[in-house]
């Protein structure tokens, strides 16, 4: 339904514009602050006219926080999370929607529960597991007395250990293991007509073939959406990378921003901090702009 009411149109536009201003204002201030020199940025109130030190500040921020390798780390982590999430979600949703096996509902609820337990809630056990991935198995072996038995029989002491601290897999894997994407795909798969599945069966395609040849191409826009969301989510992670990267070589850009924030009693270099923020914000912005075309394409061509 299209309403033609000029007054209402005007009001909605005003509201939209106000919302836009509220969303964009912080970015503008960050950009302006990053162009000031040390004195101007600490003026109260800060001048809203851009200064001339923008490139200098950017350069300083880049070298101070060593952003090059950190951005690369962030990029690897975010891409890994996005790709892993897209693949795992598609596979789990495929299993839940298209197969009937014992325990299917149970598994469905297990996945569902992870929605209620985000990483922050289970961060201590997750840290313990990442510190030694095999510790749950070790516990099982110890509790059942199997490790005692093995030691008695073979004389080998069972001590399983595989640590993922300070590694990309340690950064990535725990962030993949949540259910949001699974449900997104599940909803999409449920809208794929049954006839299509049956047509593929009549054409002789097995389950995996159907998944790869029909379902995945159909869910391209879904993948783009989920991938983008997950990229942003992983890029913005702070707590988890901070916790498991004790070694500078695996720190991410977002956690390293902290280095640019002036300490109490230190030089208040807010212009440098803002410049660093701008740099770190840039990659997610590029991803969104690039992916937006896909969203629009997906919205126009409802290929169903």
């Amino acid at each position, binding site marked *: 339904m299209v309403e033609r009411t000029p007054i209402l149109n005007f009001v909605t536009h005003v509201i939209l514009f106000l919302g836009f201003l509220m969303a964009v204002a912080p970015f503008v201030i960050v950009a302006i602050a990053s162009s000031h020199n040390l004195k101007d940025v600490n003026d109260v109130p800060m001048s809203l006219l851009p200064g001339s030190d923008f490139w200098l500040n950017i350069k300083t921020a880049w070298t101070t926080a060593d952003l090059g390798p950190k951005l690369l780390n962030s990029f690897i982590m975010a891409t890994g999370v996005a790709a892993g999430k897209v693949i795992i979600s598609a596979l789990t949703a495929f299993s839940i929607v298209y197969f009937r096996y014992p325990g299917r509902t149970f598994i469905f609820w297990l996945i569902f529960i992870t929605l209620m337990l985000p990483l922050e809630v289970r961060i201590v056990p997750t840290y313990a597991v990442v510190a030694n991935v095999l510790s749950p198995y070790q516990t099982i072996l110890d509790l059942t007395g199997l490790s005692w038995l093995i030691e008695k029989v073979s004389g080998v002491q069972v001590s399983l250990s595989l640590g993922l601290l300070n590694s990309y897999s340690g950064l990535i894997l725990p962030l993949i293991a949540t259910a949001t994407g699974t449900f997104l795909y599940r909803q999409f798969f449920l809208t794929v007509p049954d006839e299509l599945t*049956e*047509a593929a069966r009549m054409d*002789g395609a097995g389950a995996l073939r159907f998944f790869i*040849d029909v379902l995945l191409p159909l869910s391209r826009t879904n993948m783009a959406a989920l991938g983008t969301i997950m990229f942003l989510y992983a890029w913005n992670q702070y707590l988890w990378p901070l916790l498991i990267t004790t070694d500078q070589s695996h720190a991410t850009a977002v956690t390293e921003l902290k280095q640019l924030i002036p300490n109490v009693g230190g030089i208040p270099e807010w212009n440098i901090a803002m410049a660093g923020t701008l740099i770190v914000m840039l990659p997610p912005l590029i991803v969104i702009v690039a992916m937006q075309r896909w969203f629009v394409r997906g919205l126009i061509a409802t290929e169903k």
Partner: protein
Amino acid sequence: MASITIRDVKKSYAKSQVVHGVDLDIASGEFVVILGPSGCGKSTLLRMIAGLEEISGGEIAIDGTVVNKLEPRERGCAMVFQNYALYPHMSVAQNIGYSLKVAGVPAAERTRRIQAVARTLELEHLLDRKPMALSGGQRQRVAMGRAMIREPKVFLFDEPLSNLDAKLRVQMRSEIRKLHRRLNATSVFVTHDQVEAMTLADRLVVMNGGRVEQVGTPGEIYNRPASRFVATFVGAPAMNILEGTVELDGISLLGGSRRLAVQRAGLAVGAQVAVGIRPEAVRLVAPGTAGALDATVDLVEELGAGRVIYVDLDGASFSVMTSEAVHPDPGSTVGLRFLLDDMHFFSSQTGTRLEVFKASVPEPAL
């Protein structure tokens, strides 16, 4: 080319049984149409032949091989779906050739066969298009092409024409018929549209409530319906049914207001029968003519080539189809006349056809 043998096939879901023991023999190269109202189990039966539904009881054999446990791809059937079920992201050529690709047919041969099928169906200029960019009739043809390319033993059609507009449906109907004549492959076609069924079928299977009501040529089904259900389901407008009671010297109709002087030939006095007369078998005569029933005109439906006249016969609604140039006014009285040969008798209890009255006088006095 293959024959299909269906023996006592049943289908039940958790709570309800939807197909109750169907027996059917389909000869090699035959075009069989399964006709029935929605929910009668016709699609389920077809899907059991295809292998998309498990068979709960009985067995289905294609070419003498029992296929109950075989996957759809191993049965040699191809199916055309109601909504075409084309893969939206593939071009027409990819859609048609997908089964060959899955089967690992080399690309060169695949292209050759796609070309051949496209030529048959006049789709050559559309091969690069996506299904989105096709009209309903073209999509229908692509769906047919996808079935044809595998050179299947059996073609299965699940109401493939029901999404097309009336004109296209008639056109596709004759195309399917022509295609069948050329390929001569065994075909099973499911529909709820009786015109489609009558025009396409070598043999017609009428189903109701999970059971087969009658199997026969379209002529047999129309002229000698085996049950009251078949009689009223096939034919448009539907056959008129008048309830009657068998008496010593005939049948009393419409609660005793009319009498049909026929021999009761073995039926017990007092038995309830249903007398069916097709609207097109009724002739209009002047009111008061001897041997005719007088009735009041309710409504006249103009069909162009003819007209359907709905009349009120002592409270019962009755329709007459005529091609004569008569235009009785609503409210006027007309005489209705029909021959005994045109009457069908069914038991009111079981609905089965009764043949007992046929040895009677040719024109009953009413």
